[in-house]
């Protein structure tokens, strides 16, 4: 083997046959349409779930103000977190594949790190708001509890909330534990899938010298 043979191999390189698909364009159009339809269905499903939850609450009796406030906090914090998550999630479709590779690697790394950042302070805030919303909701749901509006209208009634403290503690711990477990799973996936990719793209980015 000589260096000239490398040039010969370069010549025969061009003889590698390729897959020929005459249906490529049709398949791509079908996939494009399918992906857009799935996204629309997801948005419609989320709106339907939230709407039905609100309608169900309206039909229930003995719904106190605390329940409304608690549920509102839960729905609002969920909506905000999901919105923040979707905005910062890494989608390959957000990348511009037509730019130089060094710049592409840099943008991909930025997006991946931004996605990792979702599960820091924003996620912690989300869990805290869920705990707060759930506790406020339970204040209005236990049998002996008095509504804030009832207390306001009869200031001398002397009746106060008789929510068992353990009830709040148990549910708060359960929500916190669920959040913690979810975080563990997410961190495991980040270590396994995302960080190696960031490392490799960083290696590629560092090896190149920008023009």
């Amino acid at each position, binding site marked *: 083997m000589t260096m000239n043979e490398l040039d010969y191999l370069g010549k*025969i390189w061009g003889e590698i046959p390729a897959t020929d698909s005459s249906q490529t364009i049709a398949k791509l159009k079908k996939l494009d349409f399918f992906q857009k339809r799935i996204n629309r269905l997801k948005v419609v499903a989320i709106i339907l779930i939230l709407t039905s939850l609100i309608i169900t609450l309206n039909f229930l009796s003995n719904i106190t103000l605390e329940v409304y406030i608690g549920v509102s906090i839960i729905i609002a914090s969920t909506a905000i977190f999901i919105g923040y998550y979707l905005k910062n999630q890494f989608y390959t479709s957000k990348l511009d594949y037509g730019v130089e590779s060094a710049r*592409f690697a840099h943008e991909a790394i930025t997006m991946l790190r931004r996605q990792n950042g979702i599960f820091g302070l924003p996620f912690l805030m989300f869990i805290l708001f869920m705990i707060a919303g759930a506790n406020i909701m339970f204040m209005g749901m236990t049998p002996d509890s008095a509504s804030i509006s009832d207390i306001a209208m009869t200031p001398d009634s002397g009746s106060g909330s008789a929510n068992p403290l353990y009830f709040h503690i148990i549910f708060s711990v359960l929500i916190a534990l669920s959040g913690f477990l979810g975080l563990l799973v997410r961190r495991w996936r980040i270590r396994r*899938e995302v960080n190696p*990719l960031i490392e490799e793209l960083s290696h590629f980015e560092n090896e190149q010298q920008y023009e």
Partner: protein
Amino acid sequence: MNKQQQEKLFLEVYTDYRLRIYRICYGYIYEKEQVDDLFQEIMLNIWNSMEKFKGDSSIGTWAYRVAVNTALLYNRKTKQYKKVSREATEYNTLTDVSCPDDHKLKETRLNQLGLSISKLEKQDRLIISLILEGLTYDQVSEIVGIKANYVGVKVTRIKKQLYETLKKYDNE
């Protein structure tokens, strides 16, 4: 860009560049099944990215960029973040088994080249594949986003590595 323009531009890219892009996939992955998969993914990204093509580079340069960038992210999609097996010894069947001996020899050499390229680092595989396609250092520089003289330095280093690897096959 309307659908008809998109389709016309895609057909132009597909007709003129699909074979070259396929060979880049081959150089990058070597395993036949994943080569086809990567190729399809590149075509999908070309189709989806058509609207972002502004004409600030040639359509060929743009298509190569999409191919290279798709390959950079490809392993993530397979959910098995692994390097191409350095122990791969199975040869891809590139030509008809009934062909004459000189074609067999060519096929053997091509497979050895493919295996040797698969042992390089990811970015080196992409660069050498572009060079084997006959692109100049300036063209590769435009695609990858590095200086042309640095492309030259990398190619020299890669060729030395390939030479050493291919020599081992000669000695077997």
